[in-house]
Each structure stands twice: as C-alpha cells, then as structure tokens.
C-alpha cells in the first residue's frame, strides 16, 4: 500500500503554507502529525496532488498561559508533549487516552481537532473547555469557537485554504473524564467529559453522534445546583439517557450507546469526585 504520487511542500511560515493551500492548481492538503491522514493516503481514500507539511513551521509549537486564564496550545504541539507538560490537567489526562505512545509521538492537538473524529478525545475536551480555535487563511487570521468548528463527522467549518494555528482552552476549576474503548488505544465507543469552567458546567459526550455532543439538560442541573451536588447524579444520568440522539452501527446498537453514555457520565462524575482541586 503506497500513497498516490504527490508533492511534499515544507514551508517555513504560516503565510507560505496558506499560499500553497490557496492555489487551486496545487490541490493541496495540510499535513500535521499524519496519524490519520497518512493511513487515508495509503488506502488512497485521499489523493491530494500536494501535501503542505506543517512540521517545519516553528511558530506553530509552544504552550503558554494567556492573560485571561486560558492555556494556548500551538497547533503542532505533539500529543506526547500534552501528556508530559501537565499545563492543563484535563488535556494531559485525556491525551494519554489517544492511541498509543508511538501515535502520540507524532500526533498533534491541531491535527486531532481538524480531523474532527467525534470519537477522538481532544474535540470533546475542546468543546468542554470553551475552546477557541485560531485559524490562518489567505485573508488573515480569525477565531472559531470549538462548538462552531465541528459541523459533522470528520467535517469542520474550516475552509480548504485555512489551517489551525492554535487551540486556546479554559482551565476548568473541576473536571472528570471517562472513556470506553473495546481495545486499548482504540477510538472511544463513548467518552464523557465534565468540566466546570468560568461561567458554568459543560457535560460533553464523544462517540454518540456526528460531533461532540453537549447535554444541555445535564449542564442546567449542575448550574442550578450551586455548590450542593448531593443527590444530583441520578437526574444527570437520566438527562443524558433521555436526550442523547445516537445511532446503530457495526460496533454497537443505539440502545447500547445510550446506556453507555449514561454509565460513562456516571464514571466521569465519580472521576471528578476523586480528584484533588490541584488537578485543574
């Protein structure tokens, strides 16, 4: 299995990368860590004429704190760095669930978000942490809220001549995470992220629909609880089970996914209860 022929362009700057992507004659796609795109090339499910390698652009790496208490991740920050850096407890914890060590050595935060697999960890984490996605294109840069980026399964609102330059996330005061995959390192059948961010709670489930799904009813229950969360768990799980719109496929029935969505929401709540505040 070999990719169809293509030209590899290795630009030094974001502007150079965008210029190639904006040239219709180039028929170009951006290449981040390659852990999803290269298999698609090998199976010839994707046959771009040009690949724009983002690995040579130094300005796309680095992690720093912003003035408004967020953490800014350069788009080409490796998932192995996310796990090791501990700059954002939820990101570090969730990233350790991505694939295997050898996948995380190359895979990046921007690549995972751009690929928009609804069963992947980082898209759901980005939605739960009110992610803001920095994007560069031929007309300059803009930002997209994570919740507006994910359009459908593997589909985003990015234009074909844009690249993600950074992912900026709130640091939750409290969070919990739980995931089920049939084999170690597989994409999740279902994953749940619960986070208390600046102005309220986020309850996000991955793997149940075409994009990361926010359970607004469960969020409202948590928001209305002020500080007393006792006795809430049952109502939260009911809210998830009653409102999730999920699907049948070869891996699981919709009914099984619905039951697992509620169960893994319960486990994420339990995970949150077990964590020290310092984990944020």
């Amino acid at each position, binding site marked *: 299995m070999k990719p169809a*022929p293509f030209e*590899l362009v290795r630009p030094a700057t974001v502007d150079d990368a965008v210029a190639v992507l904006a040239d219709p004659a180039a028929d170009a796609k951006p290449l981040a860590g390659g852990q999803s795109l*290269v298999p698609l090339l090998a199976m010839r499910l994707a046959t771009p004429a040009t690949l724009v*390698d983002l690995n040579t652009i130094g300005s796309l790496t680095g992690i720093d704190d912003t003035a408004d208490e967020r953490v800014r991740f350069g788009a080409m920050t490796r998932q192995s760095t996310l796990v090791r850096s501990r700059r954002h407890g939820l990101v570090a914890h969730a990233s350790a669930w991505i*694939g295997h*060590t*050898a*996948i995380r*050595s190359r895979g990046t935060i921007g690549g995972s978000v751009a690929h928009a697999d609804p069963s992947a960890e980082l898209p759901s984490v980005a939605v739960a942490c009110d992610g803001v996605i920095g994007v560069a294109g031929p007309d300059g840069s803009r930002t997209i809220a994570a919740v507006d980026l994910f359009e459908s399964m593997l589909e985003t609102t990015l234009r074909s001549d844009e690249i993600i330059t950074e992912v900026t996330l709130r640091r939750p005061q409290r969070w919990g995470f739980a995931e089920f995959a049939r*084999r170690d390192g597989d994409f999740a059948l279902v994953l749940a992220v619960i986070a208390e961010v600046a102005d309220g709670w986020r309850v996000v489930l991955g793997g149940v629909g075409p994009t990361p799904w926010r359970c607004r009813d469960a969020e409202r229950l948590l928001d209305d609880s002020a500080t007393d969360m006792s006795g809430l768990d049952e109502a939260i799980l009911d809210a998830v089970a009653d409102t999730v719109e999920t699907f049948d496929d070869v891996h699981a029935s919709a009914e099984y996914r619905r039951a697992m969505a509620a169960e893994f929401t319960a486990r994420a709540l339990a995970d949150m209860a077990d964590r020290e505040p310092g984990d944020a």
Partner: protein
Amino acid sequence: MRDVELAVNGRVRALRVDDRHTLADALREQLGLTGTHLGCEHGVCGACTVLVDGEPVRSCLMFAAQAVDAEITTIEGLAQPDGTLHPVQQAFSDCHGLQCGFCTPGFVLTAVHLVETHVVDAAAGPLDRDAIRHELSGNICRCTGYQGIVDAVERAVEIRLR
C-alpha cells in the same frame, strides 16, 4: 524525487527519495535496513516502529523527507559493534519473547523506549505487568506470544537497573 540526508544508527546517509516514500520504504529499500518490518502499512500493527529522536514512531506514517533533521534508530542500531546485544534484545532472547519474529523489531524498539523512560524516571512508579501490557498494546503479535514478550520487558528492566 529529492536528495536528502538521513542520520540512521549514528551514520549520515545520502539518498534520493520520492516524496511519497515513507521512512520505512527508505530504510528498507534504499538503505537495505530490512529489519524494519512492514505489516499493515497504515499505522495499526506497530511492526515498523523505529525511534526518531529517541521517541517511538510508526515509520509507515512518516515520509522519509520529513526525517531529515532527526536521529533515527532502527533494530540494526541497537547491538554493540562487537555483537553484544542491547539489554532489551538479550531479554527477548532469554525469555523466548519471539516466535516467528516478524513483529519483534517493532516490539523491541517500543520496549527500548519504555524501559529507558522507566529507568530514567523510576520514581514514576513500578512498571508492572499491567502497565507493560498497556504500553505494548499498539504492537500486534500474530503468533500471540505475548506472555514471553511481557516477561522479556520485565527482565529488561531488571537488567538495566542492576
């Protein structure tokens, strides 16, 4: 086609690669380093794992032209020049950590990174059998000789900490 220089097992090698050649293709077909095995060629089986700047990487998911600024270690680069095996190789031999051998180079390089990371950071906790199985779960052995492989990694840690 483009001319590149790759630093492989401590030697800089000049070669001419097609843009679509993976690192695995260049290692095997241009440099004759056929110890790197290709199983699935789409990142699932782990057989082609090599070390790039000390980190395990699927060499089927990286293009050769992307490896120009990196130090690459393949299975051929582990033993001493006099033939003395790397501790991980010795442990695989001692514990019968291989049967047909096809998956072995990928397992050994994954294990080298795991063992060396653990030796540097032993304070991170014991490398028990569950942790070893978890770390090796990205490498598939179709002989299913996993018991011997897990034994070998435990033994390699013992050898390195001795």
